[in-house]
């Protein structure tokens, strides 16, 4: 397998996506200002969208940009500005002794275990899909995904409709000012 020469464009696309994703994720971690963290998050989300397109998941890449970068990050920015949260003052204090080294150790063990699992396993068996809805090359990705969502996963799709309504009502109830209880206190 190592003797196979991979096409240069796909390598360039992968490296671009990897740089976008890793730089953005490290930015979310390192930056102190929440607004800058949200902007770094957009970088990571665009990198993931690039990786989606490189793996012929066109519809998901579009949804990634529209829903994640468009809607979710805007909600984050809206809440940050609504609350007026400035630089976080709490990150230099460390109430739990040894939390950072332990977290780093746990994450290193997890990622190392995942990569070791990858290296020792042979995922590509050549077997076709078990669900019968195989991803045929050449036909439109949107059509295949739409067919799968509206036939095989129809009940899950209907359940997401209920979930979204519940989420909207819950957010409105949570963010509403409760004047009655404040007067009662």
């Amino acid at each position, binding site marked *: 397998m190592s003797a196979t020469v991979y096409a240069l464009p796909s390598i360039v696309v992968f490296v671009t*996506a990897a740089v976008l994703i890793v730089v953005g994720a490290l930015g*979310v971690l390192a930056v102190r200002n929440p607004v800058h963290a949200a902007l770094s998050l957009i970088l990571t989300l665009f990198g993931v969208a690039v990786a989606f397109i490189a793996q012929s998941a066109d519809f998901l890449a579009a949804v990634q940009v529209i829903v994640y970068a468009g809607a979710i990050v805007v909600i984050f920015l809206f809440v940050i500005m609504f609350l007026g949260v400035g630089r976080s003052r709490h990150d230099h204090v460390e109430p739990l002794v040894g939390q950072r080294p332990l977290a780093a150790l746990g994450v290193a063990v997890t*990622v190392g275990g995942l990569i070791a699992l990858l290296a020792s396993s042979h995922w590509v068996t050549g077997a076709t899909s078990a669900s019968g809805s195989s991803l045929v090359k050449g036909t439109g990705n949107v059509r295949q995904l739409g067919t799968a969502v509206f036939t095989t996963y129809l009940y899950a799709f209907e359940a997401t409709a209920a979930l979204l309504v519940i989420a909207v009502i819950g957010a409105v109830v949570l963010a509403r000012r409760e004047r009655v209880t404040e007067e009662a206190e």
Partner: protein
Amino acid sequence: MNVPAAWYLVLAAVLFGIGAYGLLTRRSALIMFMCVELMLNAVNLTFVTFARTLSDVGGQASVFFVMVVAAAEVTVGLGIVVAVFRRRHSTSVDELTEMKG
């Protein structure tokens, strides 16, 4: 030939690790939510990679539902952050200690 799936899987593992480290170490509830988003995106990338490798559109359908749940989770979660901020004037998770025994 396209790059091997293992490259994307390693990238997703690294992204998941960065998100998990941020979730464990940061104190601001907003940044913690962003780290949860990073971890969800790492899982989505894994799903799409396996959908390509196994030629099964079910992986992409799973990503679709993960995105819907992530949108709902962010909406409700940020509503909770706003409600907490009204009471405590802080988004630090260390100051929410009412249930400490």
